C-alpha cells in the first residue's frame, strides 16, 4: 500500500477526503483513478484531459518528481503538491 499525501486545497471539495490515506495502486494514475472512484470528480482537479497532470500539480514518489505512469512500490510515499502559483 502506498502512503498518499494530498494538498489541503482538495479537502474542502470532497466530503470525507483525508489529507493522507493508503492506496493500493501500481502507478500514480491508478492511485488517482482509485481516488476518483471514491470521490467522483477528483481526477479532474489533478489532471487535464489526456490525461496529464495539471500544470501546477506536482507529484513526487519517494521524493522524486513523478508522472502519471510512474510506478509505485509496496511502501512508496506519494506526495501530491499544489505548486507555487501566484499570490
Amino acid at each position: 500500500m502506498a502512503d498518499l499525501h494530498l494538498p489541503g486545497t482538495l479537502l474542502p471539495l470532497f466530503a470525507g477526503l483525508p489529507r493522507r490515506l493508503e492506496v493500493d495502486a501500481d502507478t500514480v494514475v491508478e492511485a488517482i483513478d482509485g481516488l476518483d472512484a471514491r470521490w467522483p470528480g477528483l481526477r479532474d482537479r489533478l489532471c487535464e484531459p489526456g490525461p496529464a497532470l495539471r500544470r501546477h500539480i506536482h507529484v513526487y514518489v519517494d521524493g522524486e518528481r513523478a508522472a502519471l505512469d510512474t510506478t509505485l512500490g509496496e511502501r512508496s510515499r506519494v506526495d501530491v503538491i499544489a505548486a507555487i502559483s501566484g499570490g
Partner: protein
Amino acid sequence: MPRTVLLVGTRKGCFLLESDADRRAWKLRGPYCEAWPVYHAVHDRASGAIYAAAASEWHGAGVWRSTDLGETWELSSEGLAYDAEGGTKVSKISGLTAAHGRVLAGAESAGVFESRDGGATWSLLSTLEGQPGRSDWNDPALQPPGHLGLPAMLPHPDDPARFWAVVQGIGIFETTDDGASWTPRNRGLRADWPREHEEIGFCVHKLVMSPVDHERLFQQNHVGVHRSDDAGLSWTEVTEGLPSEFGFAAGAHPHDRDTYYVIPLDGAHGRTMPEGHAAVWRTRDAGATWQRLDRGLPQHDAHLGVLREGLAVDTYDVPGVYFGTSTGQVFASADEGESWSEIASYLPAVASVEVAVVG
C-alpha cells in the same frame, strides 16, 4: 419584503452583499467557492440558483452552484472540456448566463457549453467552427495568450434557440438554431486596426439588451459605445459626449429602452477612471447625450478600474445601479445612479457584479 442580493465575483472567491428593497444597509457574506478566482457569478431567476464561473491555478476550471443563496456550494467540471486529441484546453470559464431552463458557459479557449441539469453536468454546444478566421483563434503566434476566449452570451428572452456570443477581439455572432450555425453581427462597428475579414475583427467588451425592447442592443467596445436598433444587424456609434471611448462595463435600464450606463476608462495601460475622478455615465436618449453621475463617488485620486461584468442594474421601479472595482470596492446607487455610496471597501479585486431581487 424582497431581498436584494449582489453577487460579487472576485480574485479570491465569490461574496454576497445583501440588503432589502431600500438598498441602504448592506451585509457582506463570503468568501465562497473556496476562494477560487471567480470570473462571473449569476443568479437564475427561474430556479433561484447561483452559478459562479471559476478557475483555480491548481485545480482547473469549473462552475460552482448554490441553490440556497450561497449557504452551500457544489463544484462541477464534468463535461467542461474539449477532446484531448484536439489539443485545445478549457483554461477558464469566463462568462455564464441562465435562461430558458439551462445554463450557458463561455469558455477560454473559445466555446459555448450548456448544462440542462442545473450545473451538475455540462456538454459542448459549439466552438463556432467555420466562422471566418476561426482557425487563427488558438494560434499562439497570432494570439499572445495562446488562445481567445468567449466571455459572454446574450440570450434572447423569448426564443431559446437564439442567442448572441461574444468572442474576444473577434466580435459578436448570432445563432438562431441553438449553435448549429452562426452569423457575424458587427456591421457598422469601428476598428482602429487592420482586419483580414470584413465581418470580424472587432473588440466587443460588453453587450447588453434592453429588457423592454429586444431589438435594442447596446455595447461598450474597445473603441466606442455603439447602439443597434435592429437586434445587431447594424450598429451606430454613440460615443460623443463621453470622456473616453474605452471602457469595459455597460448596463441597460430595466424599464426604459433609451437609458444605459457605461463606465469610461483611460484606454492606455492604466484602464482606470479618467483623471482619478470616479464616475458612471448615463444616457437617457439612447446615446445622443451623456450625463456624468458622480455624487458620492470619490472625486480625485481614485484610479478605479471596472471590468466588463463589473456593473449591474436591478429591476426595481426606481432601479439601483452597482459596480465593483479592481481594487475591491463596491459602490451602489438606489436612485438610478443619481447618488452613490460605498457598500464594500476591502474585497479582493472584483471581476463581476450581478444583482438579484428575490422573495
